[in-house]
């Protein structure tokens, strides 16, 4: 007995520990594909940062024969950090576009870091095209003649110093409070984005930047690949099943050199970006959904049938994952739709109480005077946050034949009710008269 209790406690403790220590909601196994030509030492700070967060790194070369994203149909890693080797080498059969897409479909997260000096490989390009990310042409550089790094590239103007206040996605990487912080972009190209609504741009090039092909003779280009804010340095995508994919235009962003520059924001930027991509932050969870009849609290929760004009109470709770544990997520823009083909209601939920892990939101409304199969639709899609989608179909039925007010309870019906009573009474009286007074005359006529 005692042994059993001990075992249970131990098991519980293990569960608790594993729960608390979980750095990411999707797991901690990271595959870092780092080509030997990119010296690991140059990224030591970045990699040790990842390691110190509790991620379980396996650093491998792209042509490692044992590298595989799946084993027996199961993911072997939870996240992939993919840097691109020099052009001549291919990524190998395990890192083609299809396995990468399958990996993301299976819930894995991916960071793709393009090489600052080399153009993108065919397989990476194919993968990017599927996500509507258009990678630049061969040998192009992003240049800016106004915001370049004077020390790093005095001639080509392809090393830029960016203002982190211009970061576009606060849920992915928030702008630093320190206004003097700088984001160093030590060289590389930039990519363009298509119309895919799932893409969230994180870092755009400055307005005066453009993509330039050094092979061209003139300094300017008549039809550059992308200019100004149309060129992107970092962009993320969250799939509909909440896998996260990030494209980074240059590996140098994460280099020790960039980290060590004065007032550099690069290190924090790299940390936040990988945290987001590896589902370590900005992860939301729908803790509970409940709806019931408003008037009596005893009714079973989430009934499958309501009646028209019922008062309905709806309540959800949301949690957010941050730094290894769940916290209440509070916002004022969570909305509920009550729809049948079209929304009959679109209500903003108001925060009510909160527990240690979840924030509750609630609203009440009266079911519309229309029967049918209605859905409680909660769609909370915010760029950078986990997509929350919940749809529950309930039946809203018509009034039963005995659920209408009785005629004598409606004052407007009293004239009709009284006329019925009068006619019926008059008939009884008439029959009575007929039977008892007509007897003699009837006999007489016969």
């Amino acid at each position: 007995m005692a042994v059993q209790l001990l075992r249970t406690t131990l098991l519980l403790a293990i569960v608790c520990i594993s729960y608390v220590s979980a750095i990411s909601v999707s797991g901690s196994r990271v595959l870092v594909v780092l080509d030997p030509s990119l010296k690991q030492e140059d990224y030591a700070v970045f990699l040790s940062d990842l390691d110190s967060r509790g991620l379980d790194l396996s650093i491998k070369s792209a042509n490692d024969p044992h590298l595989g994203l799946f084993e027996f149909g199961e993911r072997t890693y939870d996240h992939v950090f993919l840097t691109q080797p020099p052009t001549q080498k291919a990524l190998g059969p395990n890192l083609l576009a299809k396995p990468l897409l399958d990996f993301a479909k299976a819930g894995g997260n991916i960071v793709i870091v393009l090489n600052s000096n080399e153009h993108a490989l065919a397989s990476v390009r194919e993968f990017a095209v599927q996500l509507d990310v258009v990678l630049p042409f061969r040998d192009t550089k992003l240049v800016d003649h106004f915001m370049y790094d004077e020390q790093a590239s005095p001639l080509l103007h392809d090393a830029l110093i960016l203002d982190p206040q211009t970061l576009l996605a606060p849920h992915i990487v928030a702008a630093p409070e320190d206004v003097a912080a700088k984001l160093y972009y030590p060289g590389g190209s930039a990519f363009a984005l298509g119309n895919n609504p799932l893409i969230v741009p994180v870092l755009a090039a400055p307005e005066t930047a453009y993509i330039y092909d050094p092979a061209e003779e003139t300094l300017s280009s008549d039809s550059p690949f992308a200019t100004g804010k149309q060129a992107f340095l970092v962009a993320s995508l969250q799939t509909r099943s909440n896998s996260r994919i990030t494209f980074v235009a240059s590996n140098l962003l994460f280099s020790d050199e960039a980290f060590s520059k004065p007032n550099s924001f690069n290190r924090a930027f790299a940390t936040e970006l990988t945290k987001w991509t590896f589902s370590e932050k900005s992860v939301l969870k729908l803790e509970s959904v409940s709806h019931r009849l408003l008037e009596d609290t005893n009714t079973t929760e989430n009934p499958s049938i309501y009646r028209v004009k019922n008062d309905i109470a709806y309540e959800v709770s949301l949690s957010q994952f941050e730094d290894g544990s769940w916290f209440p997520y509070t916002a004022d823009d969570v909305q509920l739709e009550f729809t049948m083909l079209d929304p009959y209601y679109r209500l903003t939920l108001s925060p009510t109480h909160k527990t240690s892990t979840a924030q509750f939101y609630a609203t009440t409304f009266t079911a519309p005077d229309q029967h049918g199969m209605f859905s409680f639709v909660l769609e909370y899609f915010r760029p950078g946050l986990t997509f929350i989608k919940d749809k529950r179909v309930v039946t809203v039925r018509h009034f039963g034949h005995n659920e209408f007010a009785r005629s004598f309870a409606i004052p407007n019906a009293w004239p009709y009710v009284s006329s019925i009573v009068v006619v019926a009474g008059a008939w009884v009286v008439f029959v009575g008269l007929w039977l008892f007074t007509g007897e003699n005359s009837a006999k007489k006529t016969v």
Partner: protein
Amino acid sequence: MHFTTKLPSSAAQALPLIRTLTLITIAGAAIASRLFSVVRFESIIHEFDPWFNFRATKYLVSHDFYSFLDWFDDRTWYPLGRVTGGTLYPGLMVTSALIFHGLKALTLPVDIRNICVMLAPVFSGLTAYATYLFTCEMKDQSAGLLAAAFIGIAPGYISRSVAGSYDNEAIAIFLLMFTFYLWIKALKLGSAFFGALTALFYFYMVAAWGGYVFITNIIPLHALVLVVMGRYSSRLYVAYSSWYALGTLASMQIPFVGFLPIRSSEHMGALGVFGLLQLVAFASYVRARVPSKHFKVLVTVSATSLLALGLAGVVGLTLSGVIAPWTGRFYSLWDTGYAKIHIPIIASVSEHQPTAWPSFFFDTFMLIWLFPAGVYIIFQELRDEHLFVIIYGILASYFAGVMVRLMLTLTPIVCVCGAVALSNILDIYTNLEKPLETDDEDKTKKEEDQSVLRLGSMSKKPLIGVFSNWSRAFVLGSFTIYLFLFVQHCTWVTSNAYSSPSVVLASQLPDGSQHIIDDFREAYYWLRKNTPEDAKIMSWWDYGYQIGGMADRTTLVDNNTWNNTHIATVGKAMSSREEVSYPILRKHDVDYILVIFGGLLGYSGDDINKFLWMVRIAEGIWPDEVRERDFFTARGEYRVDQEATSTMKNSLMYKMSYYRFTDVFGRQPALDRVRNQRIPSAITDPSVKPISLNTVDEAFTSENWIVRIYKVKDLDDFGRDHAIANAFEEGKRKTAGGRSRSAPVGGLSKGKARVLRE
């Protein structure tokens, strides 16, 4: 003219017993001849509508009556739902439920399915009895027995009442005949009691079938004709008033009928005649007290003014919307082309098509030519009740000519008239009495020689009849042969034409043995076992009831065609390109699409043959987006081969029907065996692009390809367009599986195709 045969008293006492035995035998024959389908196949519910009735009955049996009355069905017409309890005729379900509970109370637990399957045959026995009673009122008991025998086995009625055909008509024809019998009885006796009984059974009829409108109009018409012919009597007044007042009040208790009896044009005739009868009654009362000279003036003035007032009232109320105007279904009864132009959904039903001439003979055999003779004989006597038969006969013949399904209402009166005619013949030819001595012997002799039946002038009362044994034997003999042929024909038609459940198909193998094609149930059970319980299935409305009944899954549209727009939406989704259809499918939460495809087997009732109706119905709502013309080739042909228009080839229905169809044939031409056209095959002709489906996945195809089920894809995980995502997946597959082109699967299906072709 009338020969009365005197029987010995012991024989006279035995007559009722013989009559009862005969009626029981007739009922037995009626039931037995409807059991072909149970014997051949199994005890199964047939066709389409019966599946809904069966499902509703099961609901009623498992719930109480009130929850049945308030039933909101959330498994059909997703997401609109259907107020089923208020939009059905509950008579049929309540009848079976009562039988079920009654038997249970007798400790005879019978499966509700078997009660439903056997209900129609049992009620056909009752119909025979009701027809017997009705005909007895018209002529005599021998005619009644004949009529009962006829209605018992006439194919026109059997077509709607074989075992398993669990439809409203199964009990409605019995109610129709019994109500008519009670009406005749009430009219003859002038009895308020029988009038009330008529109303009671009229109520039952209203509860059971929408065809009750036939009674609602034919009884007032009978009354009107009687009044116009000057045959008004207080008997008519009592019978009609008690029927109308009680019957109308009772019929309004059915939720589906509600206030229709006082608000719709179809019921105005009965109300008008009711008013007229009051006036006529009042007039006859006044006539007794006012001098005739004054009375004439009074009548003309009041009649014209009342008529004008009444007409103005009806027109005014109709225009102001208090009285609903005639419905489209009603118009289509007068103008057979009306439905095709204005309400394609009605015209698309095959049983709403005009009747072909041979089917009159097919459904009633020799009765169809005895029918006019019977009407003629009835005309000779022309009592009040005989008028009823004549009116019924005329109306029913007209309606049966307009719509195939109304053959059903014609059959009883054909049987009655045929029985009257035949029994008249038998009366005359089986009378063995010798002619008595008369004044006019020469004339009698002359007629005897000629063997002519003459209905001469009555003034001199000449003795006419057939007295030659030869002519008797000849006529009786030939009619005996006719009757034998009639029975044989009825049995043959019943067994061959009307006993197929249509859920299960039967075909004959070359060695003569029966081969059952059970694709429908195979597919429905696949749905039942492999899809989530709340999956929504889209199909053309024909299969809605069957999916609900057999697969127990939610459908978008079904055979209760109450919402034309919703049906048109499904039609649009089927007839549009995938890019147009997909948002519609998403909006309606469609999980699976079910199509019927007969091209491989040669099953002609498939969706491609019904496709034009989908297009037409969709065009009625979205004339800019769906055009029927686009589905025809430049020469106006409806084709599915390489000459098919691009609209046709790109429509979702075409793609789902022929998806991977050519793979079955390998290098042989892919022949669609319904339309006898060759489907362009990518295998034989490299320039052809094989049909690819981007937004749906093939989920299931039944053994003979009759039912194909597709699963609607979710939105792409990466926000891609489905066509792009599919192209990517397919491109990969091609490079990966290029070597295994001649996989054993292909060989297998080739072999199967060969078997099917043989």
